[in-house]
C-alpha cells in the first residue's frame, strides 16, 4: 500500500483536524509533542504521513501531489486559486471575508471612485471589486496587521477575515460589506482522488460521520 500524505495548515485548524482524525482512529503520537522539531510524521500501521505547513502553502503541496489530502481555510483556497478537488466543508474555523474601514469610508464604496484597498488577500480583493462590484481599485498587499492601513492612511479600506470583530472595534473600524463566508475545507489532489479512490472516499465518509 502507498502512503497517503496529509498537509495540514498550522495552528487551530490543524489541532481541530487532528482531534477529529483521532476520533476516526488515526493517531499521530509524535505530533502531540509540542517540542518536536520533526517536520513529517508517519503512522506506519495505517500508512499515513502527515505534515504541518503554512496555510498558504497547503494548496500548493496538494496541487502538485506532494500531499494527497489537505485541510485549509476557504480564504487560502480562494486566494491561491489552485487546481484541486475541494471535497468537503468541515464546518469549523468559521469566519467571514469582509471589506472593513471607518464609517466615513462607507460612501467610497458606493461610487466608481478609485480607492486604495489593503489586504493580505490581493486576489480575493481584486476579484470582489473588479468582478462583483465593478469598481476599479488599487490593491496594496500587506503581510499582517492590515487594520493599521486605514488608520495611518495607507488605504481607505481593507479586505480581511473577520471572526468576532473585536480588533476592528478597538481600532475604530467596522465591517462595511461582506464578501463571503469562510471555513475549513478538505482538499484532495485530482490524481490521488482517482488513483486512491477507495481509501480517500472511505476516509471522507468516516470524517463526515465524526463531524
Amino acid at each position: 500500500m502507498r502512503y497517503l500524505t496529509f498537509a495540514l495548515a498550522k495552528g487551530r485548524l490543524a489541532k481541530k483536524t487532528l482531534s477529529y482524525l483521532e476520533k476516526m482512529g488515526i493517531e499521530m503520537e509524535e505530533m502531540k509533542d509540542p517540542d518536536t522539531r520533526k517536520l513529517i510524521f508517519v503512522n506506519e500501521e495505517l500508512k499515513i504521513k502527515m505534515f504541518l505547513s503554512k496555510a498558504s502553502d497547503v494548496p500548493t503541496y496538494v496541487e502538485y501531489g506532494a500531499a494527497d489530502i489537505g485541510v485549509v481555510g476557504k480564504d487560502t483556497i480562494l486566494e491561491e486559486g489552485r487546481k484541486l478537488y475541494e471535497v468537503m466543508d468541515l464546518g469549523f474555523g468559521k469566519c467571514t471575508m469582509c471589506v472593513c474601514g471607518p464609517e466615513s469610508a462607507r460612501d467610497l464604496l458606493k461610487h466608481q471612485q478609485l480607492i486604495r484597498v489593503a489586504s493580505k488577500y490581493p486576489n480575493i480583493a481584486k476579484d470582489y471589486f473588479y468582478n462583483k462590484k465593478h469598481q476599479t481599485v488599487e490593491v496594496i498587499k500587506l503581510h499582517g496587521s492590515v487594520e493599521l492601513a486605514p488608520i495611518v492612511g495607507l488605504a481607505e479600506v481593507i479586505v480581511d477575515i473577520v471572526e468576532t470583530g473585536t480588533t476592528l472595534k478597538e481600532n475604530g473600524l467596522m465591517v462595511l460589506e461582506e464578501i463571503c463566508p469562510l471555513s475549513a475545507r478538505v482538499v484532495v489532489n485530482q490524481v490521488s482522488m482517482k488513483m486512491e479512490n477507495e481509501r480517500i472516499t472511505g476516509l471522507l465518509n468516516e470524517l463526515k460521520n465524526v463531524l
Partner: protein
Amino acid sequence: MKERRIHTPEGVRDIYGSECVRKNHLSERMKNVLNSYGYRDIQTPTFEFFDIFNQDKGSLPSNQMYKFFDREGNTLVLRPDITPSIARAVSKYFNEEIFSLRFSYTGNVFINNSSLQGRMKESTQMGAELIGDDSVDADAEMIALSIHMLLAAGLKDFQIDVGHVGFFKGLIKETGMDEERAQELRELVENKNFFAVEALTDNPAMIQLPRLFGSKEILEEAKCLTANEESLEAIARLERLYEIIEGYGLGKYVTFDLGMLSQYEYYTGVIFRGYTYGTGDAVVKGGRYDHLLQKFGKEAPSVGLVVVVDELLIAMTRQKLEMEERESIIMILYEEERLMDALKKANALREKGNCVQMNRMDMRMTMNDYVEYAKRFDIETIYCFENCGEVKFWEVNP
C-alpha cells in the same frame, strides 16, 4: 565585474545529457505508435494570428498567452495549444474532403502562467486529431491510442479516466435550473464536493454525480438514476465505448468519471484524462470537440488527444522506470600522426551502426583523465591509437 549571461528566463530551461536522450526516446516510441495507427505528421507554425486561439476556439484565457505584433500591427500569439492550429490548417487544405483525416504532431507550446508556482511556461506536447468522424469507434480509437502510447513509453501503472459532458448537460435540462445555479453546481461537481451538492439540489442523479467515478459499474448505477434522454444517450455511448476498448484488449486501463467537467464549454462529448503516480496532473488529456472546425469554415466532428511529454517524463523518473535502451558511445582517442588510422576505424564502426566520437589526444592529459571524462558522458568504450604500438582498448564501467 561584467554580468555573465548564463541564466534562462523563468519558466524555460535547457534539456541536455541523459534527460534529453530519454525525452527523445520517449517521443520517438510514442510517435511510432501514432504512425502505426495511420496518423500522418503535421507541422504548424510556432506563432499564429491571435484569432486562431481566441476564447471561443482555444481553452486558455487571453492573458496567459504570449502576444506580440507583426509589422502591420496584427496581434500574434506563441501557440498555447496545437489543436486550433490543426483545425485551421485542415479547414484550409482539406475543406472538400468528405472522409476522415488523421493527423499527429509534436511541438512546444507556450503558456504565460503565473510566476513562482513551479510550472514551466514552455512544454512539449505530442498529440493526435481524428477529424471528420463522429462515431463512438473514433472515440475508442483515441483512447486505445492513448493507452498504447503510454505503454510504449514504458508506463505500467496508469488509468484513463473517461467522462461524457452530455450526462451533466442532460441533468441540468431535466432540473430546469437557471444558468447561475447550473454554474455553481458545475463547480461543486467538478470539485467532487459531495456534501455541498446535496445541499443544493434534490435531483437524485445530481446528488450522486460527484461520486459517480470508478470502474464501469458506475455506468449501471447512473442509468438507474435518471430518465432523461440526453443523459441516457451519454451513458449508452460510454458503454459501447467500453465494449470497443475491450475489443482492443485494453479494458483494464479504463475507468469512468461522469463528474469530469473541465473545459466543459470546449468539449462536446466524450472527455478523458490519463493519470499515473508521481505527478499531480494528468499526463494525457483529450476529448471530442465537434464545433471547433466549424469556426474555421469546415463542418467536421473531431476527437483528439494530447500527451504532456514533460509531465510524463517527470512521472516516469519519480516511478524510477528505466528506459532500457541507452545510447552507448565509442570514443576513439588518437595521437595526431595516427589520425588516418583512427578515421578508418571510426568509419568502419559507424558503418556497423555504432556511435563514435573522435578526440585528438592532449599530451597534458593522462589516460585516467580520459576515463573519467568517458564516465561523465556515458561513453562505454575507448579505442586508443598511440604513435607506437598496438591499438589499446578500454571498457569504461560507469
